[in-house]
């Protein structure tokens, strides 16, 4: 997408000094090659001289309506006085209605292109807008040897001739294929035209003490935002031509409400807005830890790798008896980002919930103590969250297997070769690629809640917690609720979570804990009905997958009661969720021996009752792991 307000001049046009401002009455006298156009924004209607290139004009007006007006409206109130700088001001489509609507503000306009600048200067003079000042300069990166003090002093004094003399010439280029687009850099190869414009080193902008910045400066965005890091800017909008580091909006001085879409990439826009809950803008990664001493320190170190102060770790020592909490506390004693919380043992769900209750951050994640997140994974996901605003963002994952020599073997997850992922609209982000993944794709996959980052306000408003009495498979409920309500999940596929495989994993024991999976699906059905979900198919598909996964290594004495309970729950779900939920699934897919006859039997008993959704309230001792373990409600085995 071409830069706004950066029209193509005649080839070889020389950079101008201060052009003649065309004096006269409104409507503004047109500069050569310019035609008057009506610009309406911020409650103002102005007739402005505009360069003749039709596309650039349309694009400027589109941007005003689609980006700038909404961004400033959402940032209200801006207040009666302030200093705005408009970098890439063009003929003034943003700056001049803004200056009219905010007469108590000072508006500095920077425009390198001579033709656009001539129109801008003519418009200011023609309309008599006293609070707008225009300078025929680009703004960009500085260089050694720039006399910033002298330039800043000339700038603060609005001394255009001095600035034209002092501002160093820098290289810009125009690809012939993009009408009107101008970016920083030297021209290389075919189809690229080079030009040089006097360029204000961005560091000098601090002298103006801007409170609002409108930024259209392709390939100079990072330099400009870095130069403004110490300036308490309150509102930033515009566009960027590639994603800049999200920290430039979040680590800088001042409260900077930010709306910077990435041109041509609807999925990405750097955004920052006040959190009404007053939460710390950042991410806490909760690490539930029960006897994970061999791994937990590596896990914490991996979370913090590449992260700044925005990322914290809350290790919840869930009654560990191997000193893992103490080990973490010792190892990270000097790192304020790491907190260790000790509690009595109550299971993984309880530890995750406790960590969340201790967190004051806007974003939260849950990593397992025996796993190994890839380097920079959580820092990268926080950036992705700041570029998408999404309720849930995620990395990829891989399984880690211990080798006999002490090394790790890594296996990519099934997603790496899944066409549903390969076909997504991947776009460059953060040194790799991102794409929004439809929730439906993830809902039927493996529960992988640990490679995701969640918005805290989302989890709170939707009342999504880990059910603490469910001591295994609690993450299934969490997975379904978060994904269903999020709808789509931006994924960074160059980031990966290492999911360590070892014999001690809870869910591989084949004991009574398998029954937690059944209770979990009943709870899920109740929630889905009460919350009015549309599309229950993934619940049923996921139920089949979970039954088969559990069946594969279930203890023999538990197989008959498991098959019977699973069959009753199947019939309950049929009645409660309705036939549409079962459209893509056949009961024959369930591999548990004894499931089919048990299902026939329970269907016969339920026939003609038509309890409908109310069936989800039906419960059974056979769905409760502690009762199954105690033999409560279980008929004696025949014989």
């Amino acid at each position, binding site marked *: 997408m071409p830069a706004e307000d950066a029209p193509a001049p005649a080839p070889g046009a020389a950079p101008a000094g201060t052009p003649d401002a065309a004096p006269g009455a409104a409507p503004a006298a047109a500069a050569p090659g310019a035609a008057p156009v009506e610009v309406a924004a911020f409650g103002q209607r102005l007739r402005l001289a505009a360069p003749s290139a039709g596309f650039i004009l349309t694009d400027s007006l589109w941007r005003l309506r689609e980006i700038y007006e909404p961004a*400033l*409206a*959402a940032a209200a109130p*801006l207040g009666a006085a302030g200093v705005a700088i408009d970098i890439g001001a063009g003929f003034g489509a943003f700056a001049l209605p803004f200056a009219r609507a905010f007469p108590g503000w000072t508006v500095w306009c920077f425009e390198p292109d001579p033709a656009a600048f001539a129109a801008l200067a003519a418009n200011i003079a023609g309309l008599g807008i006293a609070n707008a000042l225009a300078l025929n300069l680009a703004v960009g990166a500085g260089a050694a040897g720039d006399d910033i003090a002298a330039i800043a002093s000339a700038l603060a004094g609005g001394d255009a001739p001095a600035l034209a003399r002092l501002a160093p010439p820098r290289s810009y280029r125009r690809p012939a294929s993009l009408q009107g687009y101008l970016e920083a850099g030297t021209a290389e190869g075919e189809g690229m035209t080079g030009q040089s414009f006097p360029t204000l080193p961005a560091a000098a902008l601090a002298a103006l003490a801007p409170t609002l910045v409108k930024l259209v400066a392709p390939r100079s965005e990072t330099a400009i935002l870095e130069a403004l890091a110490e300036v308490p800017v309150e509102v930033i909008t515009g566009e960027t031509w590639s994603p800049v580091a999200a920290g430039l909006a979040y680590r800088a001085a001042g409260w900077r409400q930010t709306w910077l879409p990435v041109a041509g990439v609807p999925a990405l826009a750097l*955004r920052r807005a006040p959190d*009404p809950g007053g939460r710390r803008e950042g991410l806490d990664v909760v690490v539930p830890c029960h006897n994970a001493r061999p791994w937990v320190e590596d896990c914490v170190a991996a979370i913090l790798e590449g992260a700044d102060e925005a990322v914290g770790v809350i290790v919840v020592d869930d009654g560990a008896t191997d000193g893992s909490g103490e080990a973490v506390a010792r190892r990270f004693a000097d790192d304020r980002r790491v907190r260790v919380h000790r509690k009595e043992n109550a299971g993984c769900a309880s530890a995750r919930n406790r960590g969340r209750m201790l967190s004051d951050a806007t974003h939260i994640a849950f990593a397992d103590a025996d796993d190994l997140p890839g380097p920079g994974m959580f820092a990268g996901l926080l950036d992705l969250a700041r570029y998408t605003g999404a309720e849930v963002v995620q990395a990829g994952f891989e399984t880690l297997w211990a080798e006999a020599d002490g090394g790790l073997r890594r296996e990519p997850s099934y997603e790496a070769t899944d066409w549903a992922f390969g076909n997504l609209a991947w776009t460059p982000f953060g040194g790799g690629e991102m794409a929004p993944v439809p929730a439906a794709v993830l809902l039927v996959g493996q529960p992988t809640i640990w490679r995701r980052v969640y918005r805290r*306000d989302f989890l709170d408003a939707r009342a999504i917690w880990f059910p603490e009495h469910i001591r295994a498979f609690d993450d299934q409920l969490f997975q379904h609720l978060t994904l269903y309500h999020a709808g789509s999940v931006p994924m960074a596929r160059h980031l990966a979570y290492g999911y360590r495989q070892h014999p001690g994993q809870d869910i591989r024991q084949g004991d009574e804990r398998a029954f937690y999976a059944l209770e979990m699906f009943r709870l899920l059905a109740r929630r889905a009905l009460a919350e009015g979900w549309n599309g229950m198919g993934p619940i049923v598909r996921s139920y089949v997958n979970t039954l088969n996964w559990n069946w594969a290594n279930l203890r023999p004495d538990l197989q008959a009661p498991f098959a019977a309970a699973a069959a009753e729950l199947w019939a309950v779900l049929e009645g409660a969720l309705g036939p549409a939920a079962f459209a893509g699934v056949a009961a024959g897919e369930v591999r548990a021996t004894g499931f089919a006859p048990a299902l026939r039997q329970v269907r016969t008993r339920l026939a003609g009752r038509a309890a409908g*959704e109310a069936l989800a309230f039906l419960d059974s001792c056979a769905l409760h792991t502690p009762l199954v373990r105690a033999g409560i409600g279980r008929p004696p085995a025949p014989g």
Partner: protein
Amino acid sequence: MPLLTCITTTHNDGALLATGVRSVLAQGFADFEYIVVDDGSTDDTADRLAAIADPRLRVLRQANAGLSSARNRGVDHARGDYVCFLDADDSRPDWAFAAIARAIGEHAPDVVLCRGVLREIRGEPLPFYDSGRFGALADLCPEGAAGRDHPAAARIWAEAYGLEPQAASKAVARALIGTRGLRFPDGHYFEDVFFHSLALAAAGRIAFVQTPCFTYFRRYARPQITATAGERRFDVLAVMRMTLDAFALTPDFDDPACRGAVLASCLKLAEWCATMIARPQRAGFRALAATVLALADPRWLDLADTAVDPALLDRFLVLPGGHADAR
């Protein structure tokens, strides 16, 4: 008497109340009064309001009676020539009142309708849902206002009925409210479509402001009252019934495009609710929706053009059978 009265109702909005209040009191245009109706808040809202020292602000208190009742209370006490509304957790851009006042000064309309901004739940500031219709209105009515004698009046009114009914999008002449007895439907949410339709039916002249004058925030910190899966969704059917009955007695009802637009607005809202309400309530919701249409003037279904998508209409005319999920 001030030119504008702005009415905000609040119920336990806490810190979010500052969003609306700050943006109103910071308006560049000064000739307005601001009424905040505290609808039975039990948190620190009263203290927060008491802490604001601004002579333009008047606070009215009532026991909790719902949004419609609170707005009506505000209207009863309004002194401005025009009345507008803003929810506590929404905001107005700095230029909003100036733009509305200019439209009033230039056109002396009965109703002013403004563009808005939607701050999405993921933080995107976007033109409001009805931006396209405002574009169509700008083409139909480049002069920015139309009376009943405008050559395109019928099309302009039909487009205006089809705008989002959102209360913040309009300023209504208080004289019109008084003489027609315009009110929000007490006791109900999804109230805006009733007020919107009847205000436009009563209006002899409408002005359009093509710059955004409010920002509607979707947020998790305070989900919209109307965004639950609960029984409150049934309110939409009660309001639809009242809207269809009242509008059928206005002259614009005779125009198929106008009544088509009003019906389409009602059905769109009701359909949205039908897909959001808890699943055990769905069959009852569908049945009641069909009942509302059965009770309405038969001419509501005598639609000459394509104002209402026939597939959508069918979902309301055919009574549900079997499991709600099968539909």
